[in-house]
């Protein structure tokens, strides 16, 4: 499994007829078992890029090549659950073939076991995010997209959820693409960090983290963060 992204541009016309460039050159490849992190300022076009990669927007210049039959699991920024279906039904709807044992294990890891029969309206944002994660993992994806899965959660909750995501990502050899604003999350979860410029977005710098995720200790993480803080992104 491999994802080859070779986008040369993306623009859209506003209601007033003015052309806005959202993406410039964005070129990278992602291999199975690898976690790529898109890191960039708000409004730089990350969500547009994700929508293109998810096949939701075909109107761009360039091409995105992936292995045919690739299964996509996506966690949107808002959970996007069906409010009229229970937690379990929401997951099973996306993943009709998931077996009971696997589903139970997934709910166990994400601490959702006691919420199976709740409706999304009864859940907090943190819980709803975890249901969205469960849904994306239940389909056993080949390509996983996580759009700011830790945004607007308090630190303790975000930390726990980050550990749960790390566990789940490590449990399957797939391509993962994570969008985040937080260097700490990027360094703890990612293998390769793509630094994006302000709009129209292009890749300014790619940082590959040599130490495997599993063996990355606190000193390693602090060292990587220190190095990253010395990058002069503004002048690239």
């Amino acid at each position, binding site marked *: 499994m491999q994802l080859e992204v070779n986008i040369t541009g993306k623009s859209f016309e506003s209601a007033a007829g003015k052309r806005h460039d959202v993406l410039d050159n964005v070129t990278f490849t992602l291999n199975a078992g690898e976690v790529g992190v898109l890191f960039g300022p708000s409004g730089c076009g990350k969500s547009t890029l994700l*929508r293109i990669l*998810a*096949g*939701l927007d075909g109107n761009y210049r360039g091409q995105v090549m992936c292995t045919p039959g690739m*299964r*996509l*699991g*996506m966690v*949107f920024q*808002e959970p*996007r659950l*069906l*409010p*009229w*279906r229970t937690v379990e039904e929401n997951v099973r*709807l*996306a993943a009709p073939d998931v077996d009971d044992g696997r589903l139970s294990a997934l709910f166990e890891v994400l601490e959702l076991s006691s919420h199976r029969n709740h*409706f999304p*309206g*009864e859940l907090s944002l943190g819980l709803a995010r975890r249901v969205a994660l469960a*849904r994306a993992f239940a*389909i056993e994806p080949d390509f996983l997209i996580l759009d700011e899965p830790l945004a607007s959660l308090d630190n303790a909750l975000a930390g726990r959820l980050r550990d749960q995501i790390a566990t789940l990502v490590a449990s399957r050899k797939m391509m993962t693409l994570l969008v985040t604003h937080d260097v700490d999350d990027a360094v703890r979860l990612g293998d390769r960090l793509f630094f994006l410029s302000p709009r129209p977005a292009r890749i300014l710098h790619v940082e590959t983290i040599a130490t495997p995720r599993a063996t990355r200790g606190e000193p390693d993480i602090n060292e990587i963060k220190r190095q990253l803080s010395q990058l002069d992104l503004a002048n690239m």
Partner: protein
Amino acid sequence: MLRLLSFTLFIATWWIASLVIGDAKLPAPPAVLSVLVAEARSGALFINLGATLARVALAFTLAMALGSAIGYLMGRVSLANRLGDPWLILLLNLPALVVIVLAYIWAGLTEVAAIAAIAINKLPTAVVTLREGARALDPALDEMATAFALPRGRAFRHVILPQLAPYIAAAARSGLSLVWKIVLVAEYLGRPNGVGFEIGVAFQLFDIPLLLAYSLSFAGVVLVIETLMVQPFETRLTRWRLRAA
């Protein structure tokens, strides 16, 4: 309990009013009841109610099915909306009487003409309601369905239909009350049976007890259908809302 009290109050008001106005114009409840029992014994009541109910069921189903499909299409496809909109406005504002009379002239005094005329009267309101529903569909959930590659049928059933459900219920509710009203006019003008026909006969003979007997039994049937079928259906559809905190 409250319903029973409300019903008793209705009977009492009626009785007192009949005493004040006089039996000739407003017969007292027992007089109407005796006519009702006689009609029921001869079987005419049930034949007429049955004929009316069958027309309501057919016209309602036809108009709901067709109206929902057209409304959904017009809400989703802007070309369909631009093509259909003038027709919709025309139909919405066309008086029921015009449709019924024209239907009888063009298709004869037939069952098909009656049912088609009733359905055409109800159709535009269903179209308008469902068009609003289709316009209000959440694009974020559509994207979710696309990203997870949900097959079309599953997406329609689990993602689209539940969003349309309140609109379908609203169209059914308002449409049913419209059909109840129009069916009697259609029967009055051109059918040899049904509640509307009997009311027409009673009107010509100035037989007020017969008129009231049919009107009230019709109202009773409407009430029973509303409470036993429409309301439980609505409750079921909005189950997930009630439980939400």
